Each structure stands twice: as structure tokens, then as C-alpha cells.
């Protein structure tokens, strides 16, 4: 419970910083009324907007109003379609969650075994495989991978659709793109964690008691190595919720990333604000869940009998 409390405090501080930054950005990028009205708006429209949004009040008053609105989860109406911004953004949430779960799942089932294979017996050859994968994959940005996959599988081979919502298999390419972007890091961390466990004293103890290599790996290395990998998985999960912008954009995947890119292009400030806040809440929830996962997985963090 104490942990939840401190996480909540973190959230409040984080939201405070985000909202202040957003507020300042909005005010610093010129007269917000002109900005909101858009190019070529008549002076009457601009005045109407100024009165409507309270831009004629002092900056401090505006800031307080802004905070009050945010506290009530009122982000205003989308400038594009006049829907309440929050509700509009939330429509895109399931789609992002869907893609995130798929990417984390496929990334895990590919990268974790690969990392274990590389880390369990760090021979010269396996090290070379590892460093090649990591340097190639980490040096290739997601949009290159995405476009390359589209070119190969959609354009040349015609096997898979490249646009969301155009068939049962539309999820494959975006998932592959994200997995490809995330896997190298996960492989590297799993390999390093597994290799690290083989240097631990408990590993030597198990060996001194006659444990065979597969027992050493499964019963002694993996529980410890995967525990230290969990935090990276959590971070990747949070990253996907907030940062799959490019991939969602490339594949026209109707998620938070796409809506964020679109609303920035349209200067749709209420929607940008709502998206940023939804993402902040999601990251908070992921962190909260990861705390609980750690508590369950690592007996040293359980606050039970002592």
C-alpha cells in the first residue's frame, strides 16, 4: 500500500509537470486564440474564441482555470470534430492496447529464448551472433523496418496487408516491426542476465551439489535472470503504449500514436493534451502493475513474515 501511495504521489507530480509544460507551450506558441482559430479566421471569430476560452484573463488566472479543467478531466473539445477530447482519444485506446500486447508477446517469445540461448553458453561464436543482431537491429530505425516489411510482404509478395483494418492479418506487420525494434535490447539484457547468474555463488553451490547443466539453467539461472529482465519488459510495455507513434502512423493503425501524430499535425491542442494525459495514466498503471509483479516474483520484496 505504501508503494501505491508513493506511485500516486509520483503521478501527481508528473501530471503537474506535464500540465504546466503543456500550458506554457500552448501560450508560448503565439496567441492561442489565433492558433486555435486557424489560418484565415476573421477577427470576430478570434475574439469569440478568446472570450470563450478565457484568453482575455490574466496568465495566472488562465493557468488556474487550466489546472481546474484538467483536474475534472475536461480537456475541451477536439478542434477537428468537436467531440470531447478525452472521449475521442479513449476510442483509440483499445487499438493501441491490442498492438502493445501483441508486440510484447511476440517480442518475448522470440527474444527471451534467444537471449537464454546466447547467455547460457557464451561461446565466441554465440557472442558474435549476439553482437551482430544487436548492432544491425539497433542501428535500423523502426520506420525503415516497417517500410521494408511493407515493401517485401505487401508490395512484392502480396502476402500481408499493410494497412490496419484491411483483413485478419493486418496485425502481423506492425507487430513484426515493433518486435524487431524491441527484440535486440531484450535479447541483450536476457543474455547478460543469464550469463551473470552463472558467475553467482548460488550457481556454484548448485554445481557443487551435482546439478546437471539443464538443472542449473532452469532451476537456478532462469528464475533469477528473468526477474532482472522483468523491469525491461515493463519499460518496453510502457514505451509501446506511448511511443509506437511511427509504427502506428506507417500502418495507419488507429491507436494513440496515430491520433497524437494527427492532432499535432492539425494543431488540435485539446486532443494533444488528452492524449498526453491518457498516456501518462497508462504508464502509471503499468508501473503499478510491474511493482506488484515484482512483489509476487521476488521473495525478497514480499513484506510477509519475518
Amino acid at each position, binding site marked *: 500500500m505504501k508503494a501505491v501511495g508513493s506511485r500516486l504521489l509520483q503521478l501527481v507530480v508528473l501530471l503537474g509537470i506535464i500540465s504546466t509544460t503543456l500550458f506554457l507551450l500552448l501560450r508560448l506558441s503565439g496567441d492561442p486564440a489565433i492558433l486555435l482559430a486557424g489560418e484565415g479566421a476573421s477577427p470576430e471569430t478570434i475574439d469569440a474564441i478568446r472570450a470563450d476560452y478565457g484568453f482575455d484573463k490574466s496568465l495566472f488566472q488562465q493557468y488556474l482555470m487550466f489546472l481546474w479543467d484538467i483536474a475534472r478531466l475536461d480537456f475541451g473539445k477536439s478542434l477537428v470534430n468537436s467531440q470531447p477530447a478525452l472521449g475521442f482519444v479513449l476510442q483509440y485506446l483499445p487499438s493501441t492496447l491490442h498492438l502493445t500486447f501483441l508486440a510484447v508477446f511476440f517480442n518475448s517469445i522470440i527474444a527471451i529464448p534467444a537471449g537464454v540461448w546466447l547467455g547460457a553458453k557464451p561461446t565466441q561464436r554465440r557472442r558474435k551472433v549476439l553482437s551482430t543482431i544487436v548492432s544491425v537491429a539497433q542501428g535500423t530505425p523502426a520506420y525503415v523496418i516497417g517500410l521494408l516489411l511493407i515493401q517485401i510482404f505487401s508490395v512484392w509478395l502480396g502476402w500481408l496487408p499493410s494497412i490496419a483494418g484491411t483483413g485478419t492479418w493486418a496485425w502481423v506487420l506492425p507487430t513484426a516491426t515493433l518486435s524487431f525494434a524491441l527484440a535486440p535490447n531484450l535479447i541483450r539484457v536476457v543474455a547478460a542476465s543469464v550469463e551473470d547468474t552463472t558467475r553467482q555463488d*548460488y550457481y556454484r*553451490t548448485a554445481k557443487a551439489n551435482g546439478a546437471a547443466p539443464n538443472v542449473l539453467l532452469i532451476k537456478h539461472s532462469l*528464475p533469477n535472470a528473468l526477474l532482472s529482465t522483468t523491469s525491461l519488459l515493463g519499460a518496453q510495455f510502457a514505451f509501446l503504449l506511448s511511443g509506437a507513434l511511427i509504427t502506428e502512423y506507417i500502418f495507419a493503425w488507429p491507436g494513440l500514436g496515430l491520433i497524437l501524430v494527427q492532432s499535432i499535425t492539425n494543431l488540435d491542442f485539446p486532443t494533444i493534451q488528452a492524449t498526453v494525459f491518457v498516456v501518462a495514466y497508462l504508464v502509471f498503471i503499468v508501473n503499478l502493475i510491474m511493482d506488484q509483479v515484482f512483489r509476487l516474483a521476488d521473495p525478497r520484496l514480499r513484506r510477509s513474515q519475518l
Partner: protein
Amino acid sequence: MINTVSNAIEIKNLVVSFPTPAGYSAVVRGINLTINLGDRVAIVGESGSGKTMMGLSMLGIQPTSAQVEGEILIGDVNMVTAADAVARKLRGNYISMVFQEPLTSLNPVRTISSQLSESVRRHNSISKKEAEARVLAVLTAVGIPAPEERMKSYPHQLSGGLRQRVMIALALINKPQLVVADEPTTALDATIQAQILDLLRSGMGDAALMLITHDLAVAADVCNRIVVMYAGNIVEQGPVAEILSNPKHPYTRGLLSAIPKFDQARPALNPIPGAPPTISEVVPGCRFASRCSYADAQCTASEPEFINNIACFHPVTGAVK
């Protein structure tokens, strides 16, 4: 599998070396040692004398970069050349080891019970329930209070002393013939040390004990034979009483006089001057010569052989003051 023999282990001309930029350098330099069944042998020496590496190679669990030569005979199995599958059957079963750091030497994410019964069931085909009964029995035997409860604990939930008792229980659970204990009390508080030494002295059952320590007082307390190692060699060995009352090797005498004597009005520390040679250092004669007040030209010219329980050209007689 193991023929009935009179000794627990027989080490012949053991050399353990590590790769260095200048080729392989030996940390154990040709050791011969036999430990009889039920014997209690202390291996005494400074850090870096090769005693731990000797202990690890006896189980065949030396670091992978180490090169081991010679013979380590357990029955008719030579641990140096034995296939891993053969050596594995002996580890934790016929020969086991207690390590210095009980906290890091136990798996942090598994319960005491699961770690101990894993070892029992590996070497005995018995049910989970029978294994747990054995775990309970051995935890009780090593003096762990409320053993049923402690079985369900994780290592971090126990005190340092209890953890080391668990390590000893793990070493004893398959009733081995030989337990190698590597500085088992060094990481513990003084009062807990005494309890663990008590346990090593009287709670080991029929197992022979090879106690690796830098502390002659601990060696004398627990063991009946002392083997003194210096820079990879055995320099002197003998029964405890003999070594304490009439040490012959200048290094052994140095170790003895370095023990603070609290019966004197003003206890003075008498350290041995200098430091042992590094493993890659080439020393033509006796490796202790540079620190030895008895050394002469012969000592720096050739290395003394280990004859009549001592490796020294100028053995000294009489008690150490």
C-alpha cells in the same frame, strides 16, 4: 560406484593454473595430499596460497578458465579427467562443499526446503515427501530452531548464522564422505563463529572434513591435522599438537607468532614481513625465501622438496615464543 577404500580422497601432484599474458601460471603447484575417512584436516595459509582453488578442483568446480593437472582420486574416479556426468554423481553426494558467504551461496528466489530437497532427490530416487522429511531431519541435526518454519523461508529471511547452518545442512544432507569447508566462519560474527565451529567439530557425523582457513586458531580448534600451504605448495603438515608445539617451517612459526596473545600484558602483533609472490612471478628457489630470516644461498638457488612432512632446507626446532 565407489569402492570401499580407506581414504576419502587422494590428491597426487595437483597443479591448477590460470592463463596470464605470459602463459599459464600455477596457483596450486604440485600438491600431494591424502585425507582419510573421518579425518579432520585444516588447510591453513594466507589468501592467494591456492587453498580455495585446490578445494574447488577437488569437486571439479574450478573456474572454467583454470587448467587442472594431476590426479584427484575419489575411490577409482579421477575427478580431473572424469566426464562431467560421472563427477556430477559424486558432487553433493560423496564430496560436498560449504562456502564462505552463506547469503550469496544460496539461491535467493527459492526456499530453503526446495534447494535442499533438490539435492536429495538428485542423488536418491525418493518421493518429494520423503525428501522433505530428510530436509527436516538434517535441519534439526544442524541445530536450526523451528525447522518446519525455516524450511519455508527464503535465504534472506534467515540470520547469517542460520544461513551457514543451512549451507552445512546442504553439504551433509546426502551423508557425504568428505566435506570441504572454505572459510565457513569468516563472514560471521565472532559469537556465531564459535557456534558454527562447534557444529563443524561435533555435528559432521562420519564425514571427513577439510577445513580451509587462514586462521591457525580455528584450525587447531576443529581439526586433528594441519596442512600449511604457502604460495601454491604444502610447506608443512602434521598433527595439530605437533604443529602447535613444535613447528619446523619458518612460515608456520611466523603464522603462529602472528596470533595475538592476550595472556600477555601488552599483546603485540607480529606480522610476517613482506608478501607472497604473485602467481606469475618466477621464483627460482624456495618461494618463502624472500620473507624468511633463515634463508641462505641454497634457499634462493633451488626449491626444497617436501620430505618428512616439511619443505624446508633449514627446519627449526623448539616451541614458538
